[in-house]
């Protein structure tokens, strides 16, 4: 299909106009966060103003030099990354099983999986607390206040989501490709490695990114099932909201800082989404 240069020009203009508009809408609250993070308490309560008046970094230095902040940040990184990897692996296996094997009650299992994500968290905190402190105990060690506990617990809401998302993707891969690989002598791992993983790469990347983000941002469970050792960064954010008044500047500064690791992860993982977009042509 050939398009005239003129039409192509207008197409570019409309595309960019659209994206610049969307980008502005996306960035206004984040810009505001940056502005708030660079103001003192006194400045905040002046006349509302969206402009950045000066570069004031004390909020940042207060946050960054805090040793508990560094520990929380490490915990968050470990928990989210381990959880995202675990979820991607388990979800790929489970999705492959649900998609390719005739298992009894397959559809019911598939639906049951997602119901795990529906539970309103408040009432489920108590049984989980009991489980973490009493059921899983070896001598002095309990699952309470450990990174492992959070990593496993976050699977409850990330795994169903990942399986549901990947199911559509894996179902879309023609089963003939599996069969062809098997005839060529590939075992289960061969099929997964050479057929499913490359073709499902964009889906896997999106699953990984979103699981990571869900784990990174989770608050209620992290706040109630950890105490000192394994606390995550979102609980630190909530600690700025106190009865005597919220320290908005430091809260905003910490939010800006926590954006950085997420941005790095997403930028890294997005390469696979792009890869998948070009893969689409190979598929048929």
């Amino acid at each position, binding site marked *: 299909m050939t398009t005239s240069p003129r039409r192509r020009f207008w197409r570019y203009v409309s595309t960019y106009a659209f994206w610049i508009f969307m980008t502005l809408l996306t960035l206004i609250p984040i810009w505001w966060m940056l502005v708030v993070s660079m103001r003192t308490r006194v400045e905040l309560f002046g006349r509302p103003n969206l402009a950045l008046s000066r570069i004031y970094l004390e909020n940042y230095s207060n946050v960054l030099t805090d040793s508990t902040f560094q520990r929380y940040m490490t915990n968050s990184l470990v928990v989210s990354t381990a959880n995202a990897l675990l979820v991607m692996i*388990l979800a790929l*296996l489970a999705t492959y099983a649900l998609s390719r*094997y005739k298992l009894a009650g397959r559809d019911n299992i598939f639906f049951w999986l997602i119901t795990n994500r529906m539970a309103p968290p*408040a009432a489920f905190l108590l049984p989980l607390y009991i489980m973490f402190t009493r059921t899983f105990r070896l001598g002095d060690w309990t699952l309470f206040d450990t990174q492992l506990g959070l990593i496993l617990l976050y699977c409850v809401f990330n795994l169903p989501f990942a399986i549901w998302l990947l199911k559509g993707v894996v179902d879309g891969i023609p089963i003939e490709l599996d069969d062809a690989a098997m005839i060529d002598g590939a075992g289960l791992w061969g099929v997964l490695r050479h057929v499913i993983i490359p073709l499902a790469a964009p889906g896997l990347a999106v699953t990984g990114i979103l699981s990571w*983000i869900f784990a990174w941002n989770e608050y209620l469970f992290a706040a109630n099932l950890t105490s000192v050792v394994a606390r995550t960064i*979102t609980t630190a954010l*909530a600690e700025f909201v106190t009865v005597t008044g919220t320290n908005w500047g430091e809260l905003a500064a910490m*939010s800006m800082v926590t954006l950085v690791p997420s941005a790095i992860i997403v930028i890294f993982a997005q390469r696979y989404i792009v890869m998948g977009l070009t893969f689409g042509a190979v598929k048929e």
Partner: protein
Amino acid sequence: MRNPRVGWALLSPTLIILLIFGFAPFLYVLFVGFNQWNVFSADDGLVFNGLDNFRRLVFDDDFLHSVGLTARFAIFAIGSEVVLGFVLAQMLTRDFPGKSLFRIIHTFPLMVAPIAVGAIWRLLVIPGFGPVPFFLDRYFDLTYQIGSYPDQALMTSVLMDIWHWTPFVTLTMLAGLSSIPREPVEQAKVDGANRLQVFWYVTLPFLRPVLLTTVFIRIMDAIRTVDEVWMLAGGGPGTRFTGIYIWRVVFPRTDYGYGSSISLITLYLTIVLCWLLFIAISGRRKGEVE
């Protein structure tokens, strides 16, 4: 060639984790839901009271009100997110320089923790402090106070949710769009289908599983929402959603038995809603393929 036992083996780690951390707590809540139990009361704790909690629930105006609000919140927010997210994902399948930059910027809201999202939006909309009411008052002569007008508070929560979660829809849609084989699309174009027809008869059926998943996840998360909206409005009028109501019953009021039964009913309503949607969407697909 495909031994079901291998399938079960592949599925088992997932099932084990979910049975322990998802299903076991559910059984506990199910048990407590039929009891009266104020966690911090001095007397003997759990008292079995059959269906009393559920009877109380039917006449609980606060609960019914919260369900109505949550429904409105979910419908407005999710409807807009799905449409907007699909349009954005479709725009991202085009090729133009700088595309990856826009895509990355567009995912930024997802990376902000819900607590921070709530805090930032609160700072945007607090009267006498945030720029939004200030500019609305100055240039449009509108009074905007989420503390006093429930409708404004609800709409602000909806807008916040759209801002925060549209990128999620865009990403999942993008994953779905990228797994659509090109051949049927080309074939349909050769056969003379216009854009709308290609979308309706080719793209949409392929996209349906991903669309279904996305809508499911959004519905569930919207119904469970607590921290974001709590930070925004502190449970003020117009934002007393079911998740927040349960939170209030369980923690400040420590009425754990009743809180459990509300959770169960909410869970039940969510499951029924999603099941109906599941039947509606996957059933229609079957009809079309055959």
